[in-house]
């Protein structure tokens, strides 16, 4: 079978799926808007399903943080409402009916999560509150929502950025609503943060990992068809030497087949 080449979204789902371990609990919010929903919700869901099929059968998926291991075959479209009748009626293994609920967040029940913001910076700090001064912002955004909890109480965080431009990937965020590694892991400990923090930043152009001692993001891989100079031009901080950075890996045929025929045969999660 010669398959069509991997789409950019399939590539990201496959790369992410390598990051999850058996018996972990993965939390994805429900983002809306086409690019945000793809990066924040659909790619993580496909990645977790793929991990379950391949190497992590007992991974628990929390859709919108509430719906445990939902049956995606029953979906007619990607859900866009967190607490609606549609999700109430979607078959799953457990629902979160209130807070405190089934997971003990502050004890560390959630192994990893996915979040997004308008800005992320070199230290991995995330912002969804405002651009400009807090008391007189140029742009007021929605607020911190669950970002503070994602970045301090979950085991690790995958930051999903639907746009990679100098205004999104910045030297320093305007408001820290999710704490990265100011001063590295040592810095986090000094702030009373005992666990968690960003693991990767996933963008349409590259994947960042962290030097957690220095507390700096560094490019782990560059997606095919993106040049090093394009990446530098699109990023608001210095990327250092990119000459030894590999290309983001291609999915293999088995992975593509699982995504296209088992996980998302109707193309509800990822556009073909």
């Amino acid at each position: 079978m010669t398959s069509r080449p991997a789409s950019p979204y399939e590539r990201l789902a496959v790369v992410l799926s390598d990051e999850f371990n058996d018996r972990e609990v993965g939390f994805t919010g429900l983002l809306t808007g086409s690019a945000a929903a793809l990066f924040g919700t659909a790619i993580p869901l496909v990645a977790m399903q793929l991990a379950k099929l391949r190497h992590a059968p007992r991974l628990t998926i929390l859709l919108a943080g509430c719906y445990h291991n939902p049956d995606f075959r029953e979906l007619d479209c990607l859900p866009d409402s967190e607490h609606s009748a549609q999700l109430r009626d979607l078959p799953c293994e457990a629902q979160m009916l209130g807070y405190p609920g089934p997971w003990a967040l502050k004890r560390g029940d959630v192994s990893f999560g996915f979040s997004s913001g308008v800005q992320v910076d070199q230290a991995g700090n995330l912002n969804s509150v405002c651009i400009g001064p807090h008391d007189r912002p140029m742009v007021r955004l929605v607020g911190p929502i669950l970002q503070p909890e994602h970045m301090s109480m979950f085991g690790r965080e995958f930051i999903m950025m639907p746009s990679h431009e100098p205004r999104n990937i910045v030297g320093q965020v305007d408001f820290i609503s999710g704490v990265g590694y100011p001063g590295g892991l040592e810095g986090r400990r000094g702030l009373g943060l005992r666990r968690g923090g960003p693991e990767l930043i996933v963008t349409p152009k590259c994947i960042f990992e962290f030097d957690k001692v220095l507390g700096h993001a560094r490019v782990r891989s560059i997606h095919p068809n993106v040049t090093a100079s394009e990446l530098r031009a699109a990023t608001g901080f210095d990327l250092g030497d990119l000459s030894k950075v590999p290309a983001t890996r291609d999915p293999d045929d088995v992975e593509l087949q699982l995504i296209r025929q088992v996980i998302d045969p109707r193309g509800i999660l990822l556009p073909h």
Partner: protein
Amino acid sequence: MNARSSKVVSLCEAASTIKDGCRLTLGGFAVYQKPMALVRELARQARKDLVIVGAAHSFDVDMLCAAGCLKRIETSYVGLERFGLARNFRRLAEKGGIEIVDYPELISLDRFRADQEGLEFWPVEGLGGNDVIRFNAEIKEITCPVSGRLLHAVPAAKPDVVVIHAIAADEEGNVVIPARRLFPQSADITFSRACDHVIVTAEKIVPRSFIKRHARLVEIPSYRVNAVVEVPFGSHPTPTLGRYIADDQHMAEYVEASGAEVRFTRYLERYVHSPQTHFDYLDLLGSRRLTSLQDLDSLQ
């Protein structure tokens, strides 16, 4: 039933007990089950300087921003989920016209747990380094007396009034929350236990016999409730779980209008100031629209 034990009042009477400048909690969560009929009544009565203290907000806060009712808001989110940013709120914030105190989502609910426990604060971990504490002098750094760990004391919510919208209550204020509930309905229970002035708007006022058949679902007993208002479609355009779904068409009309101040003034005139009563508002929407929103839920 003894008429004197009835707590049933009109929407107008209920809203008039919410005074200018008070700390008000509006139930529901984000775009779900918001007490919108009461919100429209507050706008109609031109309430001033309210301080909204809550967990996640949307059309409720956005409308009150446009109507000039708010001074300050303490919450984790003001947005319209799949309809994007809350545009009236955004405009007011960018003019410096409202004081915004940002709280993390679950910690915003911990504040109500503190009220419920009769405490002045709730201790939390994980706020170090977050700008949420840089802009909020009311959150204090503390040391855990047992472990010595760095924690933060988050102030109790201390609402003066809590308003929630429920599917059913009796005249005395016994409130039924369905078994097939989700996060927003549970948040309402938490809010209702955090305050001594609780107003319940209900889809239907039910007889005592109905309450007795559903005693296990009466999460809010009558002695916690001060006033009950019968308001069918009282959360419109947001949904009431088990009764009706979101009115996407109306939300789109709202969002379109909220794109510019002058357009939203016309929206307020048409849907808030012109209708004399909540039923006039429902008539404006029409039976075809309202009946199309039914949520059949499970039949077993």
